[in-house]
């Protein structure tokens, strides 16, 4: 029952077979046959034309992170493919499932420095989970199915398909393919009953257990299992930046964020607990600080799906391999119902101290310019804490992640491992496709917004309902903070002369408003949220604010600065 079609048509059918409905892309010479085939699939495959290929990848990431599905990108060869690199690296380190399909010169011309030929496989191999060159139309169905299987299964990640032009145009008998097994690839290690038992025994013996929640919980769709586990044994938990929405912010056992700009209580207790239970997180240096003093007093259990994460940064006493959705449920059935009330209460004085020294001033300043923190807090409240938070990178990211509240999983989309400025705007566009029923609030800085500002064109064309909250301090604020703290206040190239962002929004037909005064903030937020579609809310904020508390880089995790001067 096969039919003769071109490789490009085979690609369309293969994408449809994988359930793809949305693509982010940009055409060019070496991918034109694919775009030609796409023209006949407009009803089923919605292609979003971005303004720069980096935007396509970040959009696919936003789409994937909010929906749990695989994001898909199409780009041309050479420069098109190279523009996707930053996003691919970002997806790799943040374990985001995306498939990037780029055009390539015809197989006969490979290696000849043909027009727009770049060795895409060579360049992307180190930053992908899998990179494959499709040189024959016969391989399309198989390669696409394999790509989606690899991107999504196990620890997710980016896959690149480099599609030579001859393969796009050659005619083949199309037969669909379904890859769901690769003998050399074990996506989810099998869990071991003995290890589960040992973990439960360690947890039952612990007086002061502390859980570190990572994005693995979200990727494994294990929020319910996590909650059941924490509640049964009454174990307090802290979340990594990417794991923030894996546990509702107002859950009584949620003690806040971990790491450099995390909450004081979490970081102090990391170095006080007797058992540290890490779930789907990778002990990034932004979480651990100085490894030589990190949780030395504690036994450590590490739940992870990726064996190569075990003992990579922190030596652990027990590794629980597997999908945490399964392993958490199994451990939960064996842990005793406990009450660590005294231990849970011991977090409070630190939370109070942070509140007194930092949070109070950050959320309810009496005078002075607007603060990023109060804006994030107010926007979150105005959306009933139900919005999807997308951020760019810098102080805007730290403040919005710290002061936004989350009620469901898949609600925080931020560039963690890579810290890619310019991530926010396109990722937010993607998120509006991945969760069309949700409000998407994107916090960005004056620096980061300008790194991918051209995607305002995509918003204009698509009518993407992105609420852009520009926290404008006329500084590369995050770098300025470091210069202030560690480089003697020498502000080397961090002040910025900025354009009139409202005029720019106007040019793209995006309604906007600028707030300077505190008394206008509520109304401005209301207007933004009530406006249909996209909106740019520019908040003129304190120029030299600092994200606190802070563990200086390389310092012990519990040695947080609460005040400056």
């Amino acid at each position, binding site marked *: 029952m096969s039919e003769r079609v071109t490789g490009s048509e085979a690609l369309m059918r293969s994408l449809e077979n994988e359930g793809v409905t949305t693509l982010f892309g940009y055409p060019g010479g070496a991918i034109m046959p694919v775009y030609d085939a796409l023209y006949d699939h407009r009803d089923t495959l919605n292609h979003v034309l971005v303004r720069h290929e980096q935007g396509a990848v970040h959009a696919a990431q936003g789409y994937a992170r909010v929906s749990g599905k695989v994001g898909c990108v199409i780009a041309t060869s050479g420069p098109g493919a190279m523009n996707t690199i930053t996003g691919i690296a970002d997806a790799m380190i943040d374990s985001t499932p995306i498939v990037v399909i780029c055009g390539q010169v015809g197989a006969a011309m490979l290696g000849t420095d043909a027009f727009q030929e770049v060795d895409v496989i060579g360049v992307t191999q180190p930053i992908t989970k*899998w990179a494959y060159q499709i040189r024959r139309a016969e391989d399309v169905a198989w390669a696409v199915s394999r790509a989606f299987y690899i991107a999504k299964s196990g620890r997710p990640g980016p896959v690149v398909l480099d599609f030579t032009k001859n393969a796009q145009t050659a005619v083949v008998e199309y037969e669909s393919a379904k890859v769901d*097994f*690769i003998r*050399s690839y074990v996506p989810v290690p099998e869990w071991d009953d003995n290890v589960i038992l040992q973990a439960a025994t360690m947890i039952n013996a612990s007086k002061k257990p502390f859980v570190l929640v990572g994005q693995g919980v979200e990727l494994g769709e294990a929020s319910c299992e996590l909650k059941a586990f924490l509640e049964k044994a009454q174990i307090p938990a802290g979340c990594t930046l990417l794991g923030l929405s894996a546990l509702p912010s107002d859950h009584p056992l949620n003690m806040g964020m971990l790491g450099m700009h995390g909450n004081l209580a979490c970081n102090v207790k990391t170095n006080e607990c007797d058992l540290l239970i890490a779930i789907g997180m990778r002990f990034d240096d932004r979480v651990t600080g100085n490894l030589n003093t990190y949780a030395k007093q504690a036994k450590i259990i590490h739940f992870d799906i990726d064996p190569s994460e075990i*003992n990579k940064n922190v030596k652990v006493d027990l590794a629980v391999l597997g999908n945490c959705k399964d392993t958490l449920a199994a451990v939960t059935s064996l842990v005793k119902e406990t009450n660590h009330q005294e231990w849970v209460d011991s977090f409070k004085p630190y939370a109070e101290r942070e509140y007194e020294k930092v949070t109070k001033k950050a959320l309810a300043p009496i005078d002075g310019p607007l603060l990023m923190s109060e804006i994030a807090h107010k926007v979150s409240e105005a959306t009933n804490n139900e919005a999807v938070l997308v951020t760019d990178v810098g102080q805007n990211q730290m403040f919005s992640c710290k002061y936004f509240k989350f009620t469901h999983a898949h609600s925080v989309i931020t560039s963690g491992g890579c810290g890619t400025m310019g991530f926010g705007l396109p990722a937010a566009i993607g998120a509006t496709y991945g969760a069309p029923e949700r409000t998407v609030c994107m916090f960005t800085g004056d620096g980061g917004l300008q790194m991918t500002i051209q995607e305002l064109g995509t918003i204009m064309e698509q009518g993407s309902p992105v609420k852009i909250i520009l926290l404008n301090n006329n500084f590369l604020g995050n770098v300025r903070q470091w210069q202030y703290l560690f480089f003697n206040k020498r502000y080397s190239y961090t002040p910025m002369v900025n354009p009139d962002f409202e005029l720019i929004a106007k040019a793209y037909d995006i309604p906007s408003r600028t707030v300077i005064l505190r008394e206008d903030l509520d109304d401005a937020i209301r207007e933004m949220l009530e406006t249909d579609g996209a909106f740019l809310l520019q908040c003129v904020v304190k120029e030299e604010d600092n994200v606190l508390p802070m563990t200086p880089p390389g310092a012990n995790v519990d040695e947080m600065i609460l005040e400056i001067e």
Partner: protein
Amino acid sequence: MKKNDGSQCGTCDTCGKCNDQNDCGIRMYTLIIYSENIAGLLNQITAVFTRRQVNIESLNVCASSTPGVHKYTISCYCTEEMVKMLTKQIEKKIDVLQANYFLEDEIYIQETALFKLSTPVVLSNKNVSRIVRFHDARIVEVNPNYVVVEKSGMTDDILALYEKLKDCDCVLQFARTGRICITKGCVELLDEYLKVRMMKYDLQKTQQQ
């Protein structure tokens, strides 16, 4: 001065070769890696070493006894902690079937070397042929210009022969292969792996039906 080429840690003299008290833990490890026969994998495997700043001392790639499966034999000096990380990161590559690491006494090791010697020197210096015989090397070619000698054995045997010949000032060229290895254990790790994977596949298929 200690050279810091990866074969020594730079702080102690132990490094697998010496027997100092303060052992830095660096040893010669040999990784045996099996992969599907797919182009570009060698690059990915060696990149793992590069990223971790471990120098590869010896590398051999060939077909294995299992059809369609390639075998990589890679030796390097590092700590056990490091070799564990390398092994896991290599095994993580989609098309790598299995990676294991071994110490020197867990494998049979063989290397081959070829020496091109100057015939006039060989004829004039009787020591040369004595050295060749003493080291159990084979002469594979003789002509008026040069003699080709082949020697198989452990690295140290080959290097010993090389040093002796060099002293005779007769070596025109010297080439040595990477080491090839066979494990001493009685379990064929790859066969076990493939068997388990096959069972898993069958199970998955029956579950789907």
